[in-house]
């Protein structure tokens, strides 16, 4: 038998660390280092020339950030991103919760419905963009037709993606379509964990449906709500393919979000420095949002 220099716990810890090495190496090489590198690039002049010649970027005295502050595009992109995230997350939560609550009652075929409702979630994002572009198609689209019937022929040229005022909403509908299934599924799983006996006890005590929901169901559901909403915030904050495929940021920059702006600066104009400046500010905002989000939930947990 071998003699051990470390005690059992230390050996456990060492083994655990060894097991983590592959994933850690991968995460550091492909995520952590690139993120820090992009923050550094945001302070540099970095364009096609640097890529071809392999020359490192040069410090350019905040020029990328000054450039962003000169155009109003960055401010607009920030506003678009925040309105998109807020609207999609709120509507998504309400509809998903409604669907989960309904599927949690004793309706016939709930299991079957739960499984087919997941289909939009597995449809690839670019394909869901295509699906909604076809539904919203300005000449032959189904939505144009339905709107003209619903408005009794008053609105016959409904083209949601071509109008700067509604384009963001159009992309939001596609996002909702793809994301509602997963959120419903997770909320439903959370609802099924609510102990029946407590709900029954509340019912016997005369608590109505609404009262039971607020006092029994919601407290049990709150950890699931917290996770699903934060997943949704992060996902929609990062949303890129839907915008890029459906509108490309247009019309007239009405759907230019931070994702679209940074991609355009970095990979269309090939100004990697300016693109990094957008993503750096964007990351700072995300940290702030997640921080405040956690604060709100902490206060609620205590209250």
């Amino acid at each position: 038998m071998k003699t051990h220099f470390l005690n059992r716990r230390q050996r456990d810890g060492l083994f655990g660390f060894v097991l983590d090495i592959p994933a850690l190496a991968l995460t550091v090489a492909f995520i952590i280092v690139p993120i820090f590198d992009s923050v550094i690039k945001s302070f540099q002049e970095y364009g096609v020339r640097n890529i071809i010649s392999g020359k490192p970027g040069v410090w350019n005295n905040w020029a990328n950030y000054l450039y962003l502050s000169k155009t109003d595009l960055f401010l607009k992109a920030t506003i678009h991103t925040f309105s998109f995230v807020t609207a999609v997350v709120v509507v998504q939560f309400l509809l998903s919760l409604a669907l989960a609550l309904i599927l949690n009652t004793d309706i016939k075929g709930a299991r079957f419905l739960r499984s087919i409702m997941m289909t939009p979630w597995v449809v690839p994002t670019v394909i869901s963009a295509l699906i909604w572009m076809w539904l919203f198609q300005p000449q032959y689209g189904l939505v144009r037709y339905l709107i003209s019937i619903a408005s009794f022929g008053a609105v016959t040229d409904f083209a949601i993606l071509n109008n700067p005022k509604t384009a963001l909403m159009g992309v939001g509908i596609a996002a909702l379509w793809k994301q509602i299934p997963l959120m419903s599924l997770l909320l439903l799983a959370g609802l099924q964990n609510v102990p029946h006996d407590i709900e029954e006890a509340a019912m016997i005590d005369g608590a109505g449906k609404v009262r039971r929901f607020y006092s029994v169901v919601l407290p049990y559901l709150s950890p699931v709500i917290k996770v699903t909403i934060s997943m949704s915030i992060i996902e929609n904050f990062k949303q890129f393919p839907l915008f890029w495929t459906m509108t490309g940021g247009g019309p007239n920059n009405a759907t230019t979000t931070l994702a679209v702006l940074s991609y355009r600066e970095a990979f269309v104009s090939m100004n990697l420095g300016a693109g990094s400046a957008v993503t750096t500010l964007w990351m700072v905002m995300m940290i702030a949002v997640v921080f405040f989000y956690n604060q709100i939930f902490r206060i609620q947990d205590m209250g």
Partner: protein
Amino acid sequence: MAIKTLNRDPLAFVLVKYFLLVIILLFLLFPLYWVLITSFKTNMEAYRYPPTFFPHEPAATSFIKLFSEHNQFFVYYRNNLIVSTSVAVLCCVFATFSGYSMARFKNRWGRMFFAILLVSQMFPVISRMISLYVILGRIGIINTLGGLIFALLAAQVPFCIILMASFFANIPTEIEEAAFVDGAGRWMILFRIVTPLVKSGLLAVGIYAFLMTWDDYLHAATLIQADNLRTLSVGIALRYLGELSYDWSLVNAISIIGTIPVVLIFFFFQKYMIKGLVAGAVKG
């Protein structure tokens, strides 16, 4: 309040419930029906206004056209299969290692590792693509499927580890203790004794990684430039949406063919997938 009156009036409550259910399900499922029937319409019929709700002359012309004329689509398709399968398999290996470690050895290092994983997932993909584009170019693996696979793997591994850990946590430690006393080494315990018990977890992880990778757009859009190495999402977006007038029947046929594998995989392995998603997100 509306719901309170419903409580006294079960019929109205039931009606509202079913009305909401039908509306939400129509919103989720009708677009799929619409894609399916459009793909079986001829372009003549697809461009008819008002639209027809059932194809008058069902035709497989768009599918025939796709299979006979658009060979490049199947190059994208093949690349997507290669990339997604590789990521799924590799993800299982990484998730087994770290998932086991996360479930069993809960020390300060483990918590720090968990935090690194979570935080790394929060940041926008574009910020790291800007940098990876340059770094991978310098070490010569940009524009290769290998480079793309590792970049995508890094994106999927964190959630897969958390998912896998929740499966490992359900295996009682007594089994391992018994094997340990019998003189089995740690690696042997992990691979011969514990891992076979979490097959359903491996399935959930593999399928999740496959679905997520099949969906990728940004990684491939930035790391791949050669048309022959493009994956599905980028290939579709560049080739079939580049022109001014779209061939909508064809685009809908592409949507169907591009979605079929993931839908089949999801429904075939639904039991594991749903269990896995719930375990990873709700308990993790």
